[in-house]
């Protein structure tokens, strides 16, 4: 079979569940790797999440495209033996249990490294494998709270606000993917196997493109606090209203000149109170008034946006998810991918943001039913006979094929 994508021939044993780990191994599968997902007998908990059709969860399908499903009771030594045998011939192991769980299951790095010295193992966790918070039960939002992300979201002085999607988990999966490919590259170049410790907390904290150094370098005088729909240090960088609709405007560098010309306030160019983004923020009340006065002259927000775009001032309408999905730009780019799942039917999910000129089309991938590939993997990869598989099923080591 000709290679279909860059990671063809690379084998991944995947112990991950929920979102962060599965997103990482989905990216590996989308790049052509063979991913064998090992699930508990009850299945990855996302199999129960909405929307359900044909006994299949859309959420599970989204995060598990392209993986084979092997369902085992990892507490049993026989199941651990199967895993060890698979890992002997694998390139990569990914897991996102609470730190300590893999060791309890005889699947920690020391054990696996002895089985396969060239192995790359990536642990994805909320807080990392070390440190006082390592074993706390976690989800994306817990990491957001501990990384200072949640504290920086919401109205000034009011309640912090939740963000409506798991950007921590998905982007942590993407970071793990990048780290794994780096380690594979190192191995192909003659390096050894290694262990990767990727945490949601580290990833989220790295998103402070400004806050950490500003706080530190100002000796705490510039203390980053949530400021609602205005940036705490920089102006203009805010959400404005225009005829009942919301839009965001950001003007830095020469875009500031473009903006003041556009709103007919060139006097601001010579005004020392508006000399740079920080002083503009100190005097932002007057600036906001000038921008909203100008916006008020339009019949609708689209006209204002056209004018801003034509004059090279970055601006955007605040779109809902369904508006994004029907936007002509998103349609032309194929930002929404339709998956045809034989149980669920058609399912729309965000397309993968990786676009390569040599591999312009995404692979057509399917998400497995629980234990769908038990027989295939055990017989083809570990030479188990039908009788042996039957015994494993009878003793509850692996699930019955659906």
């Amino acid at each position, binding site marked *: 079979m000709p290679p279909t994508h*860059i*990671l063809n021939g690379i084998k991944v044993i995947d112990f991950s569940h929920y*979102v962060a780990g599965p997103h990482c191994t989905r990216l590996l599968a989308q790049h052509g790797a063979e991913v064998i997902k090992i699930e508990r007998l009850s299945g990855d908990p996302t199999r129960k999440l909405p929307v359900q059709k044909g006994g299949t969860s859309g959420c599970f399908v*989204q995060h598990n495209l392209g993986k084979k499903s092997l369902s085992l009771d990892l507490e049993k030594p026989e199941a651990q033996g199967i895993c060890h045998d698979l890992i002997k011939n694998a390139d990569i192991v990914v897991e996102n249990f609470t730190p300590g769980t893999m060791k309890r299951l005889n699947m920690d790095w020391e054990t696996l490294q002895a089985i396969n010295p060239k192995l790359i193992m990536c642990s994805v966790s909320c807080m990392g494998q070390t440190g*006082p918070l390592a074993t*706390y039960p976690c*989800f994306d*939002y817990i990491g957001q*709270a*501990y990384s*200072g992300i*949640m*504290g*920086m979201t*919401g109205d000034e002085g009011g309640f*912090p606000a*939740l*963000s409506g*999607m798991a*950007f921590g*988990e*998905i*982007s942590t999966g*993407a970071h793990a993917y*990048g780290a794994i490919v*780096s*380690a594979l590259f190192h191995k192909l*170049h003659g390096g*050894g196997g290694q262990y990767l*410790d990727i*945490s949601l907390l*580290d990833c989220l904290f*790295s998103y*402070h493109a*400004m806050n*950490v*150094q500003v706080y530190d370098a100002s000796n705490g005088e510039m203390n980053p606090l*949530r*400021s609602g729909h205005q940036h705490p*240090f920089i102006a203009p960088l805010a*959400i404005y*209203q225009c005829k009942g609709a919301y839009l*965001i405007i950001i003007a830095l*560098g020469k875009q500031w000149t473009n903006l003041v010309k556009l709103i007919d306030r060139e006097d601001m160019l010579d005004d020392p109170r508006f000399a740079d983004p920080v002083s503009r923020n100190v005097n932002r009340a007057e600036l906001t008034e000038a921008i909203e006065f100008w916006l008020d002259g339009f019949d609708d927000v689209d006209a204002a946006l056209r004018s801003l775009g034509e004059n090279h*001032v970055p*601006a955007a309408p605040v779109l809902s*998810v*369904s508006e994004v*999905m029907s936007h*002509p*730009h*998103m349609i*032309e*780019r194929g930002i929404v991918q339709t998956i045809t799942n034989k149980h669920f039917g058609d399912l729309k999910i*965000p*397309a993968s*943001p*990786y*676009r390569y*000129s040599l591999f312009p089309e995404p692979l057509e991938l399917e998400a497995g039913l629980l234990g769908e590939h038990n027989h295939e993997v055990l017989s083809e990869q570990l030479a188990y006979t039908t009788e042996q598989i039957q015994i494993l099923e009878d003793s509850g080591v692996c699930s019955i094929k659906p």
Partner: protein
Amino acid sequence: MTQRMLEGFKVIDFTHVVAGPHCTKILAEHGAEVIKIEPLGGELARMLPMHREERSGYFIQHNVGKKTMAMDISTKEGQDICHGLIKQADVVVENFSPGVMKQHNLDWETLKEINPDLIMCSISCFGQTGPLSHLPGYDWIGQSYAGIIDLTGEAGRTPVFGEYAFGDVSTGAHAYGAIVTALMHRLRGGKGQYIDISLVEVLFSYHEMNVQVCTSSKGQMVAKRSGAHHGMLAPVGIYKCGERFVFLLGVNHQWAGLTKAMGREDMLKDPRFSDLIGMGQHKDEINAAVEEWLESVGDADKAVAILQEHGVPCAPILTIPEVIEHPHSKARGTVRTVNDAIFGEVQIPRTPLRFSEFPEPPDLRAGTLGQHNHEILREQLNYSEQQIANLETQGIIGSKNI
């Protein structure tokens, strides 16, 4: 010192502000030689706070480990230098608005003729194609177009945005993963290629649920911003405790732990709260019970300790200074200190990729504007001192101690 994973690979970097520079910073941290080419006035990040002796901490954070050249790439001489460097390079990264690279004879069609093994990665807000592609963009512009800002804030009020650049930084991390994947393809005998990474697409991929739920339910389940509490599940949200805020999540098996922690085991038996859907429908009652209990505890640290004892995922909402000082951050080295020759010490978030073979992040510095002009022209392109002096006199290259 062990050779780092990308040592020996050369990157020519035409990026500015955050998304592109973060990508090339990670390449530099993995050992690649990164030559950053800036306009004579310096890129925009050099104007962003904090400043000390005209040196920007913001610039330092996103540009450690790169050599810096400053030149006018609209001149033929400047373009000749770029072409000469690209001939010997492995990777080109840029994040101009689409079209700008072509205007300077640095587009993919031109560059692949010069170096057929080249990997070129363009990072942009909207991607290289589609009706919005020509528009200028920043992180929050992308967040608006990706349906993210619409989901953040109180219901029925102006949405808010997070005061951090998760789109830019994580788009840089996606681009990093794509580039290393393409490098690996080349190492295994494949060709060079072009990579098109869009901020909007990266951000849209963070909807781990919203897209499929919206379409699979035929528009019945549409995510909306819901302030401090989750729109569909309870209890999931931010609650006040004393003078501070706490995030907690008590669904599925954590619900039993939470009711016990609150001394409200009666709620476990209440048929209204018997499953996720019922709990979502009665979220006001549930949230009121949680608030009442937190008020009785009165101290956020105490409440978090009790909840964690009962296995309930929870977290105090930390501010940036609190994250920097947290024992877990200290234990993990989440905050790094860069020693800049002009600025002095500056604290930045550590890049979240942690490798067992390379446990310490390299001690890298950020260049001043045009710091390596002479070195690179002399050593990599064999320019004579006279030729270099001529370029300076003509204003094609320049340098400044910022």
